[in-house]
């Protein structure tokens, strides 16, 4: 096949780095509110009917949303195989916990309301809470650890070897900075989930969602600022000493990177990327304001979710943009770190995957939008009681 020469290897790597971001943001924007709603469930739903209202706001869509996560895994595997191999084995126990939490969720959604027994339902409510809160927290912890570097090195055969004991591979993740990132991530998705509940519910549930969402937004503002300061003074960045060939072979050991300076130096080199944190701050602030307004029709119910989308987009992009071109730094052997230029799949593979994505992504967007439109409207207690409603 000569067709794939149409796009240079360098360009394809860049596109796939952007697509990686699109997938992560897509996941946070869609499944993010499911997780936020799960984390909010015990607080905004005080009785069984209210809880069922809350659950049914995400009931029909969480399944599709979760595919962003699965697709993210598959796309990283296909486009960035070393990243897939090293991050998932390096975060082994954390990944197991995320999986366990995410496995609980589908089951809890489907099974919770299949029996009347209050203890049964309470058990599954707890599962939904864990299934929402735990991954939201752990994803942030993972991002924090990526910023600080992960302990691994590559052998000459490119076999990844972790440089921490089994115990430290998990507990070592829980560093203060990483926990801060976890808190920001959790608060961010709680704010997002609150935005969703404002749109999809009314009355008491909606009022509570607004209250909790506002608190979460404040935590995001404070935590994101603090994390930024911490990055400025307390955490070393990584980068190339000399520019590598952008179309070189995917072997990190040939043109190794070095540690030094700060991640935030990227703002000096590429000032335009300051747009990302600006969107993060503005979005969160506006979401906080919008959550504070009383219910007054469609626009004001839609505003918090819209602003929190912007906030999430800005905050996740800001992490990727300051790190560029590094994607996974190694704290114990910086020369093994993965970058956009040394950790991609082959030229042909990236091209084939891009063609597939170009065909199917618009289709996915179109039918997902259609499904959301069919399901548009608020979920009310009447809905839940309707025996023909097929609610959870």
């Amino acid at each position, binding site marked *: *096949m000569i067709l794939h020469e149409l796009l240079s290897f360098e360009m394809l790597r860049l596109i796939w780095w952007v697509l990686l971001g699109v997938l992560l943001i897509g996941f946070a924007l869609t499944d993010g509110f499911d997780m936020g709603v799960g984390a909010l469930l015990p607080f905004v739903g005080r009785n069984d009917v209210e809880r069922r209202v809350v659950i049914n706001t995400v*009931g*029909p869509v969480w*399944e*599709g949303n979760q*595919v962003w*996560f*699965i*697709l993210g*895994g*598959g796309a*990283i*595997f*296909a*486009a960035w*195989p*070393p990243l*897939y*191999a090293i991050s*998932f*084995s390096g975060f*082994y*126990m954390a*990944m*197991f916990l995320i*999986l366990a939490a*995410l*496995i*609980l969720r*589908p*089951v809890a*959604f*489907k*099974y919770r309301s*299949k029996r009347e027994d209050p203890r049964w339902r309470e058990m599954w409510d707890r599962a939904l809470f864990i299934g929402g809160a735990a991954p939201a927290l752990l994803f942030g912890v993972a991002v924090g650890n990526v910023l600080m570097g992960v302990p691994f090195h590559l052998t000459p055969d*490119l*076999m*990844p070897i*972790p440089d921490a*004991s*089994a115990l430290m*591979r998990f507990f070592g993740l829980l560093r203060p900075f990483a926990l801060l990132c976890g808190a920001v991530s959790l608060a961010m998705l709680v704010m997002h989930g609150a935005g969703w509940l404002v749109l999809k519910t009314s009355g008491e549930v909606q009022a509570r969602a607004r209250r909790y969402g506002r608190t979460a937004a404040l935590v995001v503002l404070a935590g994101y600022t603090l994390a930024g300061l911490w990055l400025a003074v307390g955490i070393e960045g990584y980068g190339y000493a000399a520019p590598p060939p952008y179309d070189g072979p995917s*072997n990190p050991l*040939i043109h190794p990177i070095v540690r030094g300076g700060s991640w935030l130096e990227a703002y000096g080199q590429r000032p335009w990327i300051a747009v990302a944190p600006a969107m993060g701050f503005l979005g969160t602030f506006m979401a906080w304001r919008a959550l504070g307004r009383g219910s007054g029709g469609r626009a004001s119910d839609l505003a918090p979710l819209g602003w929190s989308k912007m906030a999430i987009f800005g905050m996740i992009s800001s992490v990727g943009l300051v790190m560029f071109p590094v994607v996974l730094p190694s704290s114990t052997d910086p020369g093994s770190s993965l970058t956009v230029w040394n950790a991609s*799949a*082959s030229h*042909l*593979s990236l091209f*084939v*995957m891009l063609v*597939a994505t170009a065909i199917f992504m618009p289709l*996915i967007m179109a*039918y*997902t939008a259609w*499904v959301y439109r*069919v*399901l548009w409207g608020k979920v009310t207690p009447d809905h839940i009681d309707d025996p*023909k*409603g*097929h609610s959870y």
Partner: protein
Amino acid sequence: MEIGVLELSRLQFASTALFHFLFVPLTLGLSIIIAIMETVYVMTGRPIWRQMTKFWGTLFGINFALGVATGITMEFQFGMNWAYYSHYVGDIFGAPLALEGLMAFFMEATFVGLWFFGWDRLSARAHMIVAWLVAIGTNFSALWILIANGWMQYPVGAEFNPVTMRMELVSFAEVIFNPVAQAKFVHTVSAGYVTAAMFVLGVSAWYLLKGRHVELARRSIAVASAFGLAGALSVVVLGDESGYDAGLNQKMKLAAIEAMWETEPAPASFTVVGLPDREARQTHYAIHLPWVMGLIGTRSLTEEIRGVNDLEAEAAERIRSGIGAYDLLMRIQDSRATGVDPALVEEFHEVGDDLGYALLLKRYLDDPRQASEAQIMQAASDTIPPVWPVFWSFRIMVGIGLTLIVATGYFFWRASFRQMQFPRWSLRLAVALMPAPWIAAELGWIVAEVGRQPWTVDGVLPTALSVSHLGVGEVALTLLGFCLFYTALLVVEVMLMLKYIRKGPQDDVEETEEWMADHRARLSAEVVR
């Protein structure tokens, strides 16, 4: 055998995959059965068909939740437990997994929510289309996964790159149209159709035995038996195709399945049963059917099927050649920093296909170039997969497959030509046969995956090398975690299934009964006339 990270990781992958596959076949088949029922409803407008659709839909939903939940694990386990595998073949293997998400899983998951929640929001026709979209998505999902798995059995369209130390894609078309993958796909989805058919048949038979929901049950049997018979025939035909493909490619797997120690003059005989003995390299108390094996494996009367002993000797040769490839690879590695000599790469590609065989030695020593003759012989003997598990798994699977053709065929005949009257013994048999397709499906995976050992990717990457560098404690903990967690989920799932089966159809009861009464009156009026 010492239990280390490798053994625990294999056990974890095997158990989570086999567990996942308890739910997948039912989803594959039931999604289509439901779409068929809903189509009949839309075409005839008869409420009983909508009731059937919703009833089986409820059971589908309970099963689907666990299929999705356990599938999440599969997507991430390659990276978690098989890091070197993920690096080594991710360039090829990752693409079908990503495409599965893009093309299939998104569709299935997005529309399944709409299907359950959209009864009042969509027209009957649109709702039926959604049912088909779920079914198509589900089956496409299987296609991509089996393309990925097919590549592990028969790694076409890829080449090893000595600079990036991994297999890289050369032809995507070859990966997609891999004959092994295509045969496996149809074989596997058909097995799913049979599983779902036997499930519907079994539950319906139980209703008939109890005299409950008779109309729903009889119609369900009519649909399930036709669908199941088609599926059962297809499973066996495509299973045969798989056997033929294995003969082309995985000769050692085929020899192990048949416990064929020596190369026989063509056409080889088929061992019906026997006790394979690896130490003695013979099968005790074997009963042979002349010619059959040669016909299945080669579709000719003159081609030989190679026996285990010959293939082992061939493996030793390939290990020796692979050591040469490994030596070249090391020289390429040393010159990476200064610039690789293209002549060296050229030379490597001549023997590169045997590199994987040299990697078999990595179990015993770091540098295959230092291997002793005894170690080479040991590695060659390692290329023989465990014989008796695949030998017996295969035979039980085939036995079940043939039984199910007879069973679905019988019900199809009674449903089509005997006014849907089923003798009680046959109903009891249908209930008893419910677990059979699951057993066959799980054994099928054992044949496919144990038979591929000692490789993760046949001839390319040994399993022992694929595994992540994790601690024994870590993997033991997650294995235990998965076992406990999955067992609890299974208990809950089966409990709910039984509860909803006992409850029977809950939707549209009055409407359906009214229509049934009318319908019966109409029928008896016709008889009187």
